[in-house]
């Protein structure tokens, strides 16, 4: 059993403090939005989760490219870890988005470009897991998984722009005001809260990916024996 690195342990403890602290900050020290009320506060974690998810997928593609270049399985462990964590964050973003949408737009689901793109991304990466599980040797999993992770990220801008264009051209079924987050003006204190949640989630993402990476490493050590 390889020992957990010290930095990772410190990061764990730091996050145990930071995550509740950010929550307290958002609930008690951030002004209430005039129109939407308290439910608007979902927004801080919603955006942060979507941000962390996207970051994960980009990281996975970069790690995939590194694997194809260097052919070291370590890069593939990183790529896989990032995608798993990314899917979890994206799901958080989707569900928090739905919680927000229910009282504000009176429906659980909005075909908003950002939300839809995130959902498509989750579908893309679910397919990634199926692809890997259908392959037998770790080297092939790594090679094909890396290619798919790269292509997956490359299509995300296309998906986003196509859905956005689709929405703007069509009559808006559900009045979103102007789309999504830009619907209200953020006060400086709201921006601070957003900044805090973004930083905390970025750290949380790094921590989770790191843990998942170590798990992949231990798994492969186990299989090698």
């Amino acid at each position, binding site marked *: 059993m390889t020992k957990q690195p010290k930095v990772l342990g410190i990061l764990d403890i730091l996050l145990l403090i930071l995550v509740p602290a950010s929550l307290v900050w958002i609930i008690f020290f951030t002004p209430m939005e005039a129109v939407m009320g308290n439910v608007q506060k979902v927004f801080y974690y919603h955006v942060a989760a979507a941000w962390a998810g996207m970051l994960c997928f980009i990281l996975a593609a970069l790690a995939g490219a590194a694997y194809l270049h260097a052919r070291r399985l370590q890069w593939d462990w990183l790529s896989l870890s990032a995608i798993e964590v990314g899917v979890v964050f994206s799901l958080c973003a989707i569900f928090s988005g739905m919680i927000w949408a229910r009282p504000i737009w009176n429906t659980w689901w909005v075909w908003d470009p950002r939300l839809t793109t995130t959902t498509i991304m989750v579908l893309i990466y679910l397919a990634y897991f199926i692809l890997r599980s*259908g392959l037998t040797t770790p080297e092939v999993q790594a090679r094909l998984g890396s290619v798919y992770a790269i292509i997956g990220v490359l299509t995300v801008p296309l998906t986003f722009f196509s*859905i956005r264009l689709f929405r703007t051209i069509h009559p808006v079924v559900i009045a979103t005001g102007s789309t999504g987050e830009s619907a209200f003006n953020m006060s400086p204190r709201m921006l601070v809260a957003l900044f805090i949640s973004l930083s905390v989630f970025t750290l949380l993402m790094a921590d989770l990916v790191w843990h998942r990476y170590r798990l992949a490493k231990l798994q492969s050590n186990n299989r090698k024996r």
Partner: protein
Amino acid sequence: MKPWTRYLYMIWLIVSKDIQVEWRGKQGVPVMLVFALLIVFLFNFALQLSPELQAGLAAGLLWVSLMFASTLGLNRSISLEVENKALDGLLLAPMDRSAIFFGKSLSNLFFTFMVALVLLPVFSLLYDQNMLHLNLLLVIFLGVSAFTSLGTLLAALSIQTRTRDVLLPVLLYPLALPILIASVEASRGILSGQSKFELQSWLFLLLAGNFLFYAAGILFYGTILEE
């Protein structure tokens, strides 16, 4: 021969070989065509479509049936190579592996486009709307080209899994979504008589998709196929 002409010649060899195999076996295009027509009929009853169909619905139906049918062709195209490991024969040949990608995706483009050419008059008849439109053909060409290039790449991935070709739609459809949206919207625009200016952004998206997927093919096809 110069390297460049040799490269094009290799692509042509693969395309003509695929067409020859299809001509002999007739296992691809007829199946795709019948499947596409079946989907049209299924949707017709499932969604209770009337003959006074809106341009939008006709365009959507055309693209969904075309993409489903194309998926069959993509799977057929790669299983042809995997059977007897004929693909190894191509990999052994003195050419860059991206030429195999171009050959396979161009033949897939050709077959799907053939299906589209038959579907268009059928749609015109069924939904009483002239769909034989030069601009529409251009959009179909661009959309199908993007879809089949991505599909050719992903079919080479899915064929290596335990479930073989079953996985292709799951890999392909979420990635092809922007192509579907852009193709449907551009076709809808043409059928409802929108100006070129309004269609610009969709055409741009289709071109970007083509560029992206062909580039990905050049970069990754060899990597996907080597052991």
